[in-house]
């Protein structure tokens, strides 16, 4: 038996296995849901590793998501400066009722039904990229050929962002999410992205457009600064998340041919397989963070007002009290109820879009290339350990 940590821990980031959270976080989880943790700025708060407790805190409005109240779990180049630079429309980091005002303007665009209407276009985009990959060189980098461009093009079309500008915003958004970026580089990326978006917003004001951003501009509900923030949030979120799930998910499946075959050959398994990949891989691996607005008792501990709680969603999604045999990838298990899209009022706005993209893209890829395999040893695949969203930097594949 291992002892519960007696001294405050720090947020663990060193992984020993490609798809598993750092070993110690799983060990701690099996001893309790809450652990004292020292944040990167020295703040003494909590690390939350249990599924039930994570669900409870994420849905509890006694905990705030406001940037200026939360402490960084891991060293962040922009720590301390971030809240001054984030535009007002970055509503992810607001509480009710401010949050509701933004969210309500957007939810109608991301409903289950809306996403079904996008299916034919997503299928077309997917098959175009598979065609190009088939015609191209082998080995190919699955990230550049497939995983990044598909969600990127989809979100650009939906928002009304010119896809031709992608080289710039993909580079800046990658720099923004890279914890190894210098403060200058990250700050410059944020400034560039905001300038780009502000310019786009102004263009949509001048020339009304029939896309999401055009609709938001026309609604008259938001000022230009708010529109810039909303558009930026949606562009980054729409890009990086699904892209990393597609590449990392394919990598995990290539390492587990039996699971891969199930997903490829049985259409009835696809929806659930997507949920299981979301659970098993949990690419949001460094947070979120919430801060108690008042004293809250949880799981036998007292979280005091002002203390931050950092979540390990990968650990929560491997909680044996919630999922049997949690460290096994099993595309047939009941996997819904995972926290990969969060929970509570901030639960991912784009989750139905992400699901639709994954439900189309994984099986299309695996059916097009039945002989798909890694072109390098698995240990040589560069992992995104120091990025706020986990995944692979490149995935060399052949077929």
């Amino acid at each position, binding site marked *: 038996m291992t002892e519960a940590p007696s001294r405050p821990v720090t947020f663990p980031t060193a992984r020993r296995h490609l798809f598993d959270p750092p070993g110690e976080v799983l060990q701690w989880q099996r001893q309790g849901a809450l652990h004292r943790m020292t944040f990167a700025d020295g703040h003494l708060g909590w690390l939350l590793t249990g599924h039930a407790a994570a669900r409870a805190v994420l*849905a509890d409005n006694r905990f705030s998501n406001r940037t200026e109240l939360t402490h960084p779990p891991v060293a962040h180049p922009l720590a301390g400066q971030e809240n001054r630079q984030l535009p007002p429309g970055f509503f992810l980091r607001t509480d009710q009722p401010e949050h509701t005002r933004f969210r*309500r303007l957007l*939810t109608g665009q991301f409903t*289950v039904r809306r996403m079904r209407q996008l299916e034919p276009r997503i299928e077309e985009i997917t098959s175009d990229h598979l065609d190009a990959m088939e015609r191209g060189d082998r080995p190919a980098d699955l990230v550049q050929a497939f995983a990044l461009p598909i969600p990127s093009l989809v979100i650009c079309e939906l928002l009304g962002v010119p896809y031709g500008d992608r080289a710039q915003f993909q580079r800046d958004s990658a720099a923004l999410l890279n914890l190894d970026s210098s403060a200058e580089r990250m700050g410059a990326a944020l400034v560039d992205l905001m300038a780009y978006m502000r310019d786009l917003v102004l263009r949509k004001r001048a020339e009304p457009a029939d896309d999401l951003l055009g609709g938001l501009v026309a609604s008259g509900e938001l000022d230009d600064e708010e529109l810039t923030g909303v558009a930026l949030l949606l562009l980054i979120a729409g890009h990086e998340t699904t892209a990393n799930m597609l590449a990392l998910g394919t990598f995990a499946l290539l390492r587990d041919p039996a699971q891969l075959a199930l997903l490829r050959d049985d259409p009835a398994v696809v929806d659930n397989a997507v949920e299981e990949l979301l659970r098993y891989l949990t690419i949001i691996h460094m947070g979120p963070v919430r801060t108690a607005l008042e004293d809250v008792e949880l799981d036998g501990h007292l979280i005091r007002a002002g203390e931050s709680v950092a979540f390990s969603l990968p650990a929560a999604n491997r909680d044996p009290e919630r999922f049997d045999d949690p460290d096994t990838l099993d595309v047939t298990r009941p996997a819904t109820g995972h926290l990969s899209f969060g929970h509570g*009022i901030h639960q991912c*706005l784009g*989750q139905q879009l992400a699901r639709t993209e994954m439900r189309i893209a994984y099986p299309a890829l695996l059916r097009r290339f039945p002989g798909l395999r890694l072109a390098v040893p698995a240990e040589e695949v560069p992992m995104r350990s120091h990025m706020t969203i986990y995944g692979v930097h490149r995935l060399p594949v052949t077929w």
Partner: protein
Amino acid sequence: MDIKADTDRCIGAGMCALTVPEVFDQSEEEGTVVLLDADPPASRETAVRKAVQLCPSGALSVS
């Protein structure tokens, strides 16, 4: 079954419409929950309870 949906709490995440499309939909404009059938047949009870459980905002209840 007596299902209640609180559109003020709803954040339009769509878990309900995804889980039991026969019972829940989302409005075109705001994306918030629309209850299609407040008293569905007993055969849907398990799915409805699952939707209530999955709803991130606590907008749904069933008794």
